[in-house]
């Protein structure tokens, strides 16, 4: 006869509230505090830009896109992307149910005169903005600001980074110029 325990106690450990019972590396049960490891960054990119030029008219009410050719992606499956109007550039990010911190930065090179772009995380599904407004410019490499936003999604939503105003034509360009762009959605639930 094989006797088995009547309680899910593990070794001599006493569990604390919120700890979980998981399987350890040896195949046995172990008590642990859960942490995200390989899937804590839902989506990340370190893009390599090709030269690409836009004018102010293209940007107004359009999305700030990014190129995914060399993106480093750590995605637990809760984020999907879709191409923007320039094909290889990602414009929209669809996030699944969960809580997220969005962390995004952009930089650009002024095309003619120094200009400024204001941009923000935009919920395309609900037509709402989230987090602080960030600014790019007025010169090449200063005041490249960052968007921080908290999202608590009870249903899947699609987001973009939308320009809310601008003051000059701009040019995305990284040939011998500091690329300064990333988009991350961290799962925090």
């Amino acid at each position: 006869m094989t006797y088995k325990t009547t309680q899910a106690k593990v070794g001599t450990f006493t569990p604390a509230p919120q700890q979980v019972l998981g399987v350890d590396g040896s195949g046995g049960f172990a008590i642990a505090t859960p942490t995200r490891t390989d899937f804590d960054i839902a989506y990340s990119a370190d893009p390599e830009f090709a030269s690409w030029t836009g004018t102010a008219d293209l940007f107004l009410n359009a999305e700030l896109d990014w190129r995914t050719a060399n993106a480093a992606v750590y995605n637990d499956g809760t984020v999907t992307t879709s191409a923007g109007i320039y094909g290889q550039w990602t414009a929209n990010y669809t996030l699944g149910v969960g809580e997220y911190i969005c962390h995004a930065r952009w930089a650009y090179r002024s095309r003619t005169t120094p200009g400024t772009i204001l941009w923000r995380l935009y919920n395309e599904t609900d037509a709402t903005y989230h987090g602080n407004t960030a600014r790019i410019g007025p010169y090449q490499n200063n005041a490249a600001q960052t968007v921080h936003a908290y999202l608590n999604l009870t249903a899947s939503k699609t987001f973009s980074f939308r320009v809310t105003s601008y003051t000059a034509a701009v040019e995305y360009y990284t040939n011998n110029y500091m690329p300064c762009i990333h988009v991350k959605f961290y799962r925090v639930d």
Partner: protein
Amino acid sequence: MSHNTYKIGTSEPDREGDIAVNTTSLSDITETTPLSGQVLTWSGSAWTNSSATFAQEFMLIGQGETNAYSNSTSATTISDGDTLHLYDTSPINRITGSTIQKYLTTDWVTSVTLPAGNYIIMASYEVEFSASGYMSFLFKDSSNNVVSGRGAIGANLPENASGYLQSYREFTSSTTIRLTITNISNVATVANQGNTPAQRSSIMFWKV
């Protein structure tokens, strides 16, 4: 010869006396129908099945709301050494043991107190300028010790600095910190800041 009548919960022995025990037969597990990906979590008195929750501890202040900076201070000018305030009616605070201090009865945050631990510290701040100028900022503790790297904004920066502050810091005890101006030129008056600091600034602390 009859089967052994011993049972564990609802699990009965097979004809060889072995018992395959389900988790529902364990006395300290209170389980509803499990879903894929769920785990057993200790509630303090029993194991229950639920989606895993993760101990992410972070604080986010500054989410784009609108409010005049003149509501954050009685001062009329912004000077070197001043504290930069952040507006947030509902800061996201998931750091156990931390507190957020605000100016009078407003929603302008003046400082935060973080418990001992290791933190990634991030800040993005924007002000209005009266002319081409600059502003550098960093975090200081209540003894005026610098506890972060520096961020700087402005069209006429005298130093090479990122517009974004990002640092790592270990606090060995509970520490109150504030975002402090360290270098400044041609920053507009408090009255002329309008909503810019509220709408465009944010700070974030991530306990790691």
